[in-house]
């Protein structure tokens, strides 16, 4: 590179420092909610203008083509099978639910609001009965009305895991914990609506009867997996290739890993839908294999935003921060990136050895590995995501990871090692997904800092495609001796249940597809979860969440890296842009508009 | 050939500006040198001879004696295929039918090639293009020099094939070289080289690649054709037998020089140079008892980069010490007349040669 480049780079270095300062300040005073955040009407709204607040709402006009760029296709576009965050977000274009996330920025976006239903549920006092009435004029893409039976059928599909695997199964667990219903495809009854727990007295009314109360039930109904599906349009395993639309847009064409095009569903009526604004006429998704290429095209303005909503890759991030800061937002994703210690692998059965790792780790180094304070997130100090009620953020820092020990505390680590009976440290293996470079980087960082306290680790990159089979199988973890597993987790819906239940509940230790990697079997924690599901008062729910979080942290099962943040791109064409906690800090796709 | 004797005696000194010779082909003080990484290879180093129409000259010598290079030099092909290598240096004069080729325009020489002078190569298999039929190749050779259409040329090709004794020429004309036997191939080669009735025909080891029976036929063929076309022929070979049959004159080359020259029968029956004796001795002859061992020439050919001082042959010569005071190793012998129209380059005196020939060599032959 030429000499000009050098001087250029020096300037940048200086600039960089300034930018950090600027960024951090803006981020700090974020969350304010003026309904038409900064920026000129024509140009980009400005840095963080759409983070937890709406940017350029009034600039949104009807029409135009909204262009998504994607580095990865959805696991499935079938409402029953999709589990990727962006899929849930995107699915609102072509599917509606009884209730859905409010189309509001930030925390408000996590609240449940009526969609197909006229209003939110009438809940019986025991919290076991939920009743909804469908609003008038809700139709499928062929103009036929959406009935309560369609909703029931759509929900029932989740029972057919053998055909429609992949999606969340909360409803199944709550409505039919004993798995008595075999799913619609094996349903003997004529109308295939054999699920006892749901009743549809008429086409407009639907009643859910829970064997056990669950305070998050309505949150579960707000998930995409509770969308209606019409029996005569159910193509079973191939439904994801062309879902039958109940929303403002319908599939025009879709070639997996290549392109997806949505066009207006002319049968959809604005009047029948309090949630969706449906600004653009057409929505396209193009898939890339070269992430840098994709970012470059976003920055060039060929596309409007990233479907994956995972943030720009390092190269694009740098370019954007230097030249197009006003097109960026820096939201909190609601994900926590962490290392977890399976108790089945010695010496991690001993909590002191676990804590030795927590103290030995250089948290700042881990943060840098994740991408630094801006692109990576704030140093993680506990396991409850900021978006979940009851979270205290960095205020709760049992191991002082963000303060005194942020570069690791060798002395304390050694103490813990002594207490653990391994004064000279020990050997173990870090398991990390091979398709996540950033996670590999954190593994390397951890490896480097643990060396200092005498803990030597071998990094084992396992096939990211086989997560459920490799680290999801406790026996395999034990066999391989994965003492440290690097993972990340975000809430399916913002509650300690939607986030922590699979991770921390003893009942969720599975032989395969396990997510309770630490193998936590703690009476108190399990008890707290029980209380939580029965508790209907939000304040108390938050309190319980807090307690669970503390219990988990005190056990030293987890080493949080960061409360994840990412640098997200929005093109200057976009209007009515805002991030939503309902979709872990992603832009709320369904109401994006384009300027003319 | 008297004046030739003079120039022959004056081997080494360039004879520039001398008038166009009467002879059909006259080569004067020809030098062909190849610069290589190992040094300057003097493949031909001052060769002089001449040849009349209708006559045949046999050039004999081991590989590396410079005989092939000589012929290529005459054809103007000594630099062929030497891409990027240091170019061969050629000097002297080559007069063909009154034109000096070395100083002539290369394109003019090219036009002469194939029409005025043609060449038969040693290994017909590798010398014929494997991908073209015999016919195509002969036709091509003909049409370069004659503006005629394919049909005519093809008829000519068949006629030539017939002439050189290839059965069913009208069929074989469309065969590929690899479909021919060795002898047939060589016949085809000859047909190709004679298709333009060249005045000079150079046959470079025409029979080496062939088995003995076929050799004879080919030689006969060449002889007949020469009679018919009346062209001058140079036969290059290592086999005295071959030249003995064919040629009027014989020129023996060693280390890029001529060491004996004279009428065929002279050189063959009364050779004067020990090297020629060696060649004779190593030659199988029908009139000799087969049980008798041959007398090979000991040792290997000299390096053309630095020839042995004195007589180039001295390291391998059994009689190197016959002449007095080590002259063979110090002084290079020049050609001297050793009989009528018979020259040899050897330090031994007539008497010494006579004695050794009659007493030691002749009986063994």
């Amino acid at each position, binding site marked *: 590179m030429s000499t000009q*480049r050098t001087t250029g780079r*020096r300037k940048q*270095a200086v600039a*960089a420092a300034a930018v950090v300062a600027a960024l951090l300040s803006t981020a700090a005073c974020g969350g304010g909610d003026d309904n038409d955040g900064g920026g000129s009407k024509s140009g980009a709204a400005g840095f963080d203008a759409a983070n937890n607040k709406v940017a350029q709402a009034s600039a949104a006009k009807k029409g135009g083509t909204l262009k998504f760029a994607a580095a990865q296709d959805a696991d499935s576009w079938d409402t029953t099978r999709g589990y990727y965050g962006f899929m849930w977000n995107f699915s609102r274009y072509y599917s509606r639910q009884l209730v859905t996330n409010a189309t509001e920025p930030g925390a408000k976006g996590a609240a449940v609001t009526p969609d197909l239903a006229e209003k939110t549920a009438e809940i019986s006092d025991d919290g076991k009965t939920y009743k909804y009435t469908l609003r008038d004029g809700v139709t499928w893409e062929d103009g036929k009305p959406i009935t309560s039976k369609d909703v029931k059928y759509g929900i029932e599909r989740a029972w057919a895991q053998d055909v429609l695997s992949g999606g969340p199964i909360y409803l199944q667990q709550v409505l039919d914990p004993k798995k008595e219903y075999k799913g619609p495809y094996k349903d003997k009854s004529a109308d295939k609506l054999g699920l006892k727990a749901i009743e549809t007295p008429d086409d407009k009314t639907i009643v859910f009867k829970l064997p056990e109360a669950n305070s998050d039930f309505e949150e579960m109904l707000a998930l995409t997996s509770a969308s209606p599906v019409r029996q005569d349009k159910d193509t079973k395993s191939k439904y994801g290739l062309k879902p039958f639309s109940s929303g403002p847009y319908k599939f025009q064409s879709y070639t997996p890993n290549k392109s997806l095009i949505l066009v207006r569903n002319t049968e959809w009526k604005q009047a029948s839908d309090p949630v969706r604004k449906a600004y653009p006429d057409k929505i396209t998704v193009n898939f890339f294999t070269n992430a*840098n290429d994709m970012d470059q095209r976003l920055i060039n303005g060929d596309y409007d935003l990233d479907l994956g909503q995972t943030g720009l890759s*390092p*190269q694009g991030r*740098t370019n954007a921060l230097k030249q197009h800061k006003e097109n960026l937002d820096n939201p909190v994703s609601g994900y926590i990136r962490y290392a977890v210690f399976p108790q089945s692998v010695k010496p991690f059965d001993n909590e002191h050895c676990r804590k030795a790792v927590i103290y030995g780790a250089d948290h700042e*180094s881990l943060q*840098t*590995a994740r*991408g*630094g304070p*801006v*692109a990576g997130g704030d140093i993680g100090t506990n396991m409850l995501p900021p978006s979940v009620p009851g979270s205290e953020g960095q205020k709760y820092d049992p191991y002082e990871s963000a303060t005194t020990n942020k570069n690791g505390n060798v002395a304390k680590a050694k103490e813990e090692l002594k207490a653990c009976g391994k004064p000279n440290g020990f050997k173990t293996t870090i398991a990390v997904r*091979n398709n996540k*470079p950033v996670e590999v*980087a954190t*593994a*390397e*960082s951890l*490896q*480097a800092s643990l060396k200092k306290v005498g803990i030597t680790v*071998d*990094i084992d*990159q396992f*096939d990211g495609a086989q997560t459920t089979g490799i680290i999801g199988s406790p026996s395999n973890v034990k066999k391989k001796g994965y003492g440290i597993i690097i993972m990340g987790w975000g809430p399916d819906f913002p509650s300690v249940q939607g986030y922590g239940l699979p991770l921390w509940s003893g009942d969720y230790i599975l032989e395969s597809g396990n997510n309770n990697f630490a193998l936590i079997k703690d009476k108190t924690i399990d008890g707290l979860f029980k209380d939580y599901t029965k508790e209907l008062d939000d304040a108390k729910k938050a309190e319980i969440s807090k307690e669970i979080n503390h219990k988990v942290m005190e056990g030293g099962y987890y080493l949080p890296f960061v409360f994840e943040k990412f640098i997200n791109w929005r093109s200057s064409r976009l209007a009515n842009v805002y991030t939503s906690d309902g979709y872990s800090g992603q832009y709320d796709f369904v109401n994006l508009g384009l300027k003319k | 050939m008297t004046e030739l004797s003079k120039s022959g005696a004056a081997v080494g000194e360039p004879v520039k500006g001398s008038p166009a010779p009467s002879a059909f082909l006259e080569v004067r003080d020809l030098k*062909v040198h*190849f610069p*290589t*990484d*190992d*040094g300057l*290879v003097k493949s031909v180093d001052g060769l002089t001879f001449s040849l009349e129409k209708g006559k045949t000259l046999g050039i004999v010598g*081991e*590989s*590396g004696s410079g005989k*092939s*290079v000589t012929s290529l030099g005459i054809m103007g*092909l*000594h630099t*062929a*295929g*030497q891409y*990027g290598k240091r170019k061969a240096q050629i000097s002297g004069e080559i007069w063909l039918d009154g034109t000096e080729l070395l100083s002539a325009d290369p394109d003019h020489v090219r036009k002469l090639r194939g029409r005025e002078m043609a060449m038969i190569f040693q*290994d017909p*298999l590798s010398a014929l293009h494997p991908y073209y039929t015999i016919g195509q190749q002969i036709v091509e050779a003909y049409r370069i020099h004659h503006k005629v259409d394919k049909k005519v040329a093809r008829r000519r090709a068949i006629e030539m094939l017939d002439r050189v004794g290839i059965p069913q020429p009208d069929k074989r004309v469309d065969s590929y070289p690899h479909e021919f036997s060795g002898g047939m191939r060589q016949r085809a080669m000859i047909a190709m080289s004679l298709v333009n009735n060249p005045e000079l025909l150079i046959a470079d080891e025409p029979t*080496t*690649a062939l088995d003995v029976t076929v050799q004879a036929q080919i030689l006969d063929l060449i002889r007949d054709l020469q009679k018919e076309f009346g062209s001058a022929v140079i036969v290059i070979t*290592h086999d005295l037998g071959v030249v003995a049959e064919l040629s009027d004159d014989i020129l023996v080359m060693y280390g890029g020089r001529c060491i004996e020259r004279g009428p065929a029968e002279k050189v063959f029956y009364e050779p004067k140079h020990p090297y020629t004796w060696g060649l004779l001795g*190593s030659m*199988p002859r029908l009139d000799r008892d087969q049980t008798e061992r*041959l007398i*090979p*020439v000991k040792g*290997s*050919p000299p*390096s*053309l*980069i630095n020839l042995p001082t004195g007589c180039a042959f001295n390291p391998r010569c059994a009689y190197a010490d016959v002449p007095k005071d080590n002259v063979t190793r110090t002084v290079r012998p020049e050609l001297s007349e050793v009989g009528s129209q018979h020259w040899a380059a050897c330090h031994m005196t007539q008497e010494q040669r006579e004695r050794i020939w009659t007493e030691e060599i002749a009986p063994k032959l």
Partner: protein
Amino acid sequence: MTAPLHEPTAEAAPSAAEEAALVAGSGEAKAVQGRSLGRIAWERLKRDKLALAGGVVVLVLILVAVFAPLIASLVGQDPETHHEDLIDPLFSTPTGSFGGISGDHLFGVEPVSGRDIFARIVYGARISLLVGFLSALVAVVLGTILGVLAGFFGGWVDAAVSRVMDGLLAFPQLLFIIALVSVMPNEMLGLTGTGVRLFVMILVIGFFGWPYVGRVVRGQTLSLREREYVEAARSLGAGRFYILFKELLPNLVAPIIVYTTMMIPTNILTEAALSFLGVGVKPPTASWGQMLSAAIDYYDSDPMYMVIPGVAIFITVLSFNLFGDGVRDALDPKGSR
């Protein structure tokens, strides 16, 4: 025809230039000074400046690879220590200009981790050369054995081997290598982590490489087998294996050497490609290909990080190729450069 004098054989009818060369005593001619093929080759090679340069670089690289730890420690660096202090927290690129090149960090430091690039390049040479050489070795050994067998015994042996070779050449190789390496278990034969990957890569790359050698060797064997001196040896009643080893193998040395030198750079590139696709050696082990693939995320913000491993691969492969060409020309009887 008797050959008491040194006659040109039919298949070696020399062109003017060649005849000159022959007499000059080079190539496989029965040289006047009777110099050995090896010596001639060496003398030719000595004249080929480019090839020599290539050879020298190769030699240096080998030394570097062998003494990697020493060299790294000389500059007081090791490939695995992190230097986050040198990383810009916002862009996670090195703070210094030119990718943080400085007195301590001759080639600068990696983005994110701040590991010393010089040290990693030096250690990376080990991986590249190891894979390059060993897989070439595997290929050559397999190729030679099978090629000779096929060419010499002909018949069904030849048929079988040739089929297999065609087959392997018809395989979409890179695809297979990726697939195979990506599903390989993490422990096998007592090896773990990088060990396994290296082992697998070497075997697989070598395995897919042998048909190329095999073809050449087979061809050579076939032609040599027809050369009359083998015939002669046979008529003298020499055993087939005697012929095989005494006559053929020496003549195969040249092509084999050439092919080896030609194959090594290709293998190095393949290793790089595999690491680039994420199925190469495992972190924190340094590999050029891996660095390059990581660097692609910083091609603009930290170009040096991409340039350095890129150039390293380039120089290595280039010098191997130059050297290889030189060796080929030197061993080629026709060539005279």
